[in-house]
């Protein structure tokens, strides 16, 4: 790995969102172009600084030197040289840039997207063609390029998973596309990169790349969401859930075999099916665990100030019941 040659390189590459550890063909071609052009630019910078240092050593006025040097007004040959050299460099850069654009920029050409991601203030809705709907994480199989269709439900957002390649804005009334093609199974951190209001900083996303077999079993499980367990606590939680109008915003399947209907459900807030399977709560605000879910339910505004989730002032008992009802894990 080119980024890991130096100790500093491995330090920088160790950050989960680092551009120094590209993990897809798209990200790698951008990274290679970045290292090449940065190298050339830094060399020019180094030359200019060396020239300035040389001048400061040789041409400082010494005490007693009061006479001004004989005027020199310019040199046409030099001007031509230092116009043509930068011109040549930017020409080369342009030529290098074009293939990388074509390699990384997704234009669907009639191909149906594999996954649709719809950005909301301040979370991500992720839809699959077979009706699976999840939130704040994109599961995908490795080994082939996956085409994402990117849309927004409100303001402009931007889908960005640094280790997997370019970022892409999501604009009202427009669908944009992006290739995701991780080299290896793993979890890739990302975030909304276009300022979108109060909780822009806590609109994080994860790409979970899996082998085809793992992905298939995940998708099958999502098509048949877990039902609440039959404990009295969970049953009570179900009643609180209905009573508190949670379903006005959140989708949650209570009966088997209706998961596909979610494809037509109005989505104002994340679907809660198989909530226990998710990596995080509140779009990256908290690690997902029953304890953190209880914390979230108790006071969402303390966890994520400005979030659209209102504080229902649930009692501790209600929170316990709701947690038992909501936190379901498929495996």
């Amino acid at each position: 790995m080119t980024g890991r040659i130096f100790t500093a390189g491995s330090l920088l590459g160790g950050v989960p969102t680092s551009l120094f550890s590209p993990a897809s063909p798209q990200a790698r071609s951008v990274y290679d172009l970045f290292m090449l052009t940065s190298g050339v630019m830094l060399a020019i910078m180094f030359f200019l600084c060396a020239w300035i240092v040389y001048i400061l050593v040789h041409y400082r006025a010494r005490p007693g030197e009061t006479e001004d040097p004989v005027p020199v007004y310019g040199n046409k040959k030099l001007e031509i040289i230092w116009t043509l050299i930068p011109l040549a460099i930017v020409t080369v850069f342009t030529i290098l840039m074009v293939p990388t654009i074509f390699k990384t920029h997704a234009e669907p050409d009639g191909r149906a997207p594999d996954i649709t991601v719809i950005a909301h203030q301040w979370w991500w809705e992720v839809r699959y063609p077979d009706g699976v709907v999840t939130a704040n994480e994109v599961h995908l199989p490795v080994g082939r390029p996956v085409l994402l269709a990117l849309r927004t439900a409100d303001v402009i957002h931007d889908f960005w998973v640094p280790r997997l390649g370019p970022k892409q804005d999501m604009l009202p009334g427009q669908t944009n596309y992006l290739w995701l093609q991780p080299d290896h199974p793993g979890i890739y951190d990302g975030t909304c990169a276009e300022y979108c209001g109060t909780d822009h900083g806590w609109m994080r996303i994860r790409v979970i790349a899996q082998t085809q077999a793992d992905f298939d079993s995940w998708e099958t499980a999502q098509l048949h969401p877990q039902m609440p367990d039959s404990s009295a606590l969970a049953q009570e939680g179900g009643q609180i859930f209905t009573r508190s109008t949670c379903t006005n915003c959140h989708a949650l399947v209570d009966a088997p075999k209706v998961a596909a209907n979610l494809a037509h459900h109005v989505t104002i807030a994340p679907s809660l099916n198989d909530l226990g399977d998710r990596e995080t709560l509140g779009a990256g605000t908290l690690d997902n665990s029953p304890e953190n879910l209880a914390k979230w339910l108790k006071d969402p505004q303390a966890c994520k100030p400005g979030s659209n989730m209102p504080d229902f002032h649930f009692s501790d008992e209600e929170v316990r019941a709701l947690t038992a009802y909501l936190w379901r894990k498929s495996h």
Partner: protein
Amino acid sequence: MTDLTLDGPVGSDATHEHEDGGEGLLSWVSTVDHKKVGLMYIFTALFFLVVGGVEALLMRIQLAVPNNHFLSPQMYDQLFTMHGTTMIFLVAMVLVNGFGNYLIPLMIGACDVAFPRLNAFGYWITLFGGIMLNYSFLAGGAPSAGWFAYAPLSLPAYNTGTGMDYWTLGLLMTGIGTVTAALNLIVTILTLRARGMRITQVPLFVWMMLITSLLVIFALPALNAGLVMLFVDRRMHGMFFGSHGSPVLWQHFFWIFGHPEVYILVLPAFGMISEIIPVMSRKPIFGYNFVAASTVAIGFLSFGVWAHHMFAVGLWNSALITFGASSMLIAVPTGVKLFNWVATMHGGRIRMNTAMLFCIGFLVQFTFGGVTGMTFAIVPLDWATTDTYFVVAHFHYTIIGGIVFAMMAGAYYWFPKMSGRMLSERLGRWNFWLMVIGFNGTFFVQHILGLLGMPRRVASYPNLPMWGTLNMISTVGAFVFGFSVLVFVGNVLYSVFYGEVAGDNPWDAWTLEWLATSPPAAHNFERVPYVRSRRPLWDAKNPELADWRHPEGG
């Protein structure tokens, strides 16, 4: 000394009355004198610099550690919006107008600008625009859609309250002020030059202010029109930029203004560098024609690159390639300038005073800002780095490392002319080195943060490896920078009263402003020589080596 032939009083329109009567407040409020208007612009810019600086420091406190709760996200959003808006429209633009107003008539041997009353109007409407914008803090909340106010986030559906309305109207007022100032300077430069001074003989600062003013005339109306449309959308249920209109249209309007704006700000800084480096190196500028012509090239190119701010919105490939290539082209005339400045120093007798130190700081830091800027012209690299802390670092290198350092050089260079006293060199050294350490400490690490995936405009951030450490370094740097600004303000206050008396021409400089007394009389000059070259005061002092005797010097 044929070139010092005195040709009688200048002042083709020296008829307007000056309120020379007093030194009281009324003399400032009622003045139409370009020097007083210029100083008022500069003081206004300094005031708003403190305002915008405090906003920046509050943000840096919030970002010092991960998951911080020092500020609410709503307050943080208001602060970064107001910080950007204030620094661009109420500090940098106002400072440019201030130096331009003060210096241009003196540099071309005129007694005032062409339209003194319009000039005063431009200042006051700019000031009132700035006050109106900041009043929003008291009127229920400042604007919070970022300094480029992307729709639909800036529309009432997502931005309730009146903050954005204060933003549109306040900027419209300063925009009108800026356009009048630019018109005024263009006419002044074209019509009020001293006898004999050809347009190719004006000091490079004047030349660059001419191009800047032309850019203002063509760029600001796009913003002003966009602001009116945004206001119609917000208050009269218009449909320009909302979901029934086009959010991308706003981006086009904003950036066809916004990118030339970058050059509107940086060209005057280039002009100052082009004045100070020759004087401190004791050599004429290397390649005057090329420095001037490259400015014109930058001016034209600046109108053909705006879409590089929009590479991630989903443009088609041919547009991406075109705008990528045109943006890269700007590096060519900018490079020409850098090489000419360094070539001017080469073979000189360089005086290493504070003004020159700031020039050298400018050369190095601005070049680095240019190096990182290449990243935003090469489209795929823009996709990787835009909207991250890398772009924050990049434009602060050009704006602070470039423009502010040049303005500091200008302040040390022209303060003697404006006040009659020298700024303290000892405090100047402290000022310079603290500023270098503070500035680079704040912003260099932000490049790394961006490359490590930290997006810009986040009120708090997760505790990822290195993010906290780098942000803490940045915050400490910001406070060092803030302290260096205080040293500068202290130097100004000290030197106004106790500084060494400057005399008319303390730097042994060559342009006409140094012929006037320090500070200049209300009518600027008693007599102005017939100008035969770019360096009239050099010609007077060195008749044997006069510039006009040399084929390339005139």
